[in-house]
């Protein structure tokens, strides 16, 4: 049996109406899973967007996912960053924590260790901005759990190859 593993796939697409529905519909329609999905325009002049998808499957399924993405008409390029060698993955989270006294001080100390920035503060709350690999973001959120965590927003992963090549 082939084993399933997680892959980070970057897709360059025309930024046109319905493109996200096409990609998401492909995954739901064919029974593939999406662990993380981010999308934004990255080239205004050529009107291109970059979609980063983290998915999991056996090698045959992942190959099929890429082939299916590649045959969508508005898709320019599909890169499997996991297969293509070393790459960097980053995620950003906004983390709201409510508390006073020792808990508040501890939250701030941990934020410092994680290089999280305070981007909003009241006398009894913070909103932290933390970036990093997903597991780091996850650990930070978990630590805030006992320190008055109120809410979390995460962007999902964006990723890029190391070195000078595009993608």
């Amino acid at each position, binding site marked *: 049996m082939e084993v399933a593993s997680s892959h980070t796939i970057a897709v360059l697409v025309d930024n046109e109406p319905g493109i996200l529905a096409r990609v998401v*519909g492909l995954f739901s329609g064919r029974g593939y899973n999406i662990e993380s999905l981010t999308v934004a325009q990255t080239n205004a002049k050529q009107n291109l967007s970059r979609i980063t998808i983290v998915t999991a499957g056996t090698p*045959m399924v992942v190959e*099929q996912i890429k082939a299916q993405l*590649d*045959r969508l*008409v*508005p898709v320019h390029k599909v890169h499997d960053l996991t297969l293509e060698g070393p790459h960097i993955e980053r995620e950003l989270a906004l983390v709201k924590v409510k508390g006073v006294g020792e808990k508040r001080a501890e939250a701030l100390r941990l934020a410092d260790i994680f290089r999280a920035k305070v981007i909003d503060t009241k006398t009894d709350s913070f909103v932290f901005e933390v970036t990093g690999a997903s597991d780091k973001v996850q650990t930070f959120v978990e630590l805030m759990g006992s320190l008055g965590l109120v809410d979390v927003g995460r962007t999902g992963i964006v990723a890029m190859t190391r070195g000078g090549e595009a993608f």
Partner: protein
Amino acid sequence: MKKPEETATTGADLLVKALIDEEVEVVFGYPGGAVLPIYDSLFKQNKLRHILVRHEQAAVHAAEGYARSTGKVGVVLVTSGPGATNAVTGLTDALMDSIPLVCLTGQVPTHLIGNDAFQEADTTGITRPCTKHNYLVKSVDALSRTVHEAFYVARSGRPGPVVIDLPKDVLMNKHDYTAPDMPVQHKSYRPVTKPDAKKIEQALELIANAKKPMFYTGGGVINSGARASKLLTQFVHMTGYPITNTLMGLGSFPASDKQFVGMLGMHGTYEANLAMYHCDVLINIGARFDDRITGKLAEFSPHSKKIHIDIDGSSINKNVRVDLPIVGDAGQALEDLIKLWKARQPKVDQKALKAWWAEIDKWRGRDCLAYKQGKDVIKPQFALERLYHHIKDRDHYITTEVGQHQMWAAQFLKFEQPNRWMTSGGLGTMGYGFPAALGVQIAHPEALVIDVAGEASIMMNIQELSTAAQYRLPVKIFILNNQYMGMVRQWQELLHGGRYSESYSEALPDFVKLADAFGAKGLRCHEPSKLDDTIKEMIAIKGPVIVDVAVDKAENCFPMIPSGAAHYDMLLGPEDRAARPVSEEGMVLV
């Protein structure tokens, strides 16, 4: 872009001009509020012919028949809302069978989109998963570019249906038309057609050194154009190897040729399926390892090295892992293979090949399609053999509905050329065959066009008799009337203890009177001895004909590989059935 030709035309006029520039000759459609501007533009010109169907699903199937029998893009025009939703089955059918279509759908004006306006449907949303691509045109500026791009997308690479959704205001707004520079290209969609030369060399090596080779070729060869079928025939002759075709590939290699071992798969021949199982090199050109042909995947052609040539990378390694994937056009790949074969003059192991053919001929000797025709009841196989006898020397095209009759048609009619066989393979759409036949007849007015039908399927688009009457389309509907949804009955017999739940064709019309009511001719035949005369009469009649052939109600279609079984596990006749119950795993499969 060339310079604007004319000023101040409406979007609808511009659309019609763009269609004419795409060399469209005929549009299959049905009017409604949202597309009235287009119908107005059609009224004012005489280059484009419009065929008025009686249901939008039929418009799409007719366009499919037109497209498959000509190699051109079929064009459909329907209104918003129900017009578009009625077209969905046809679009899905075309997607599954890789048929190039452009379907124009009306839409409510842009400012009303999203307001649940009258006859509004989210057409691009609904058709996204059942088209190759779709567009919502939001401004008349984008209209002509979109139309030309849509034709490019529909016909390039793996062909498929493309929807253009057209809000009514876009059709009414004024704009200049600029003819595009042909051929139009797409900024991101560039399918690979030229196969990698190194891989062609590797393929040749594998092919030349095979001891038990097998060609397995499909609809992709037909999609590639008539030339690909010629090249396939040439290459297969050069090698001397056996070849089987999928249902969709019939006609790409002449059926009467002795190297042809018949169709493979669930209802394929004994020899084709056993050759698939025992071969050592499998050469797949333009076929997609569909579950109807692989059977049990774990035991699919287990001893072979597999080469797969396909224009769509997603067809490769989807169901079956192959050893040598080659992305490219079938015709192009065959051309390259032939060139290389001629240059290298490889020495095929003739002794091994002879032994392989001897094995295949032994399987052939089982005569798996044999049936017993008695004096009283017409066997469906006999009806088709007689039909073939009378049409084989005429210029003919065959379409089918879906069911047993479809499989018997595939087994008993012989296809010598591509584009002569139109059937719904991937979706298996009952109701496909008759409107498809109308589309074929429009494209080939002089030819003999026959829809081989079941009495249940034909009821699904029977309203099209009115279309046939209006345009005097002399299509022949040849019904193998077994009074059952035979294919359903066969499965119920095999898998559900003979409990024939809802599969009896109750309350059928009198097909002869029905034909009469629509101004067509109806014929009926019960007796084997009268069959020939009935068929001759059918052919002689100039207009549309329904022939109601009463056939054996209990006949089953064999060979059959029950779902989930392996190729060697074929049922060859009723006597085999009892011996081998279907596995539980197989029961859940379709």
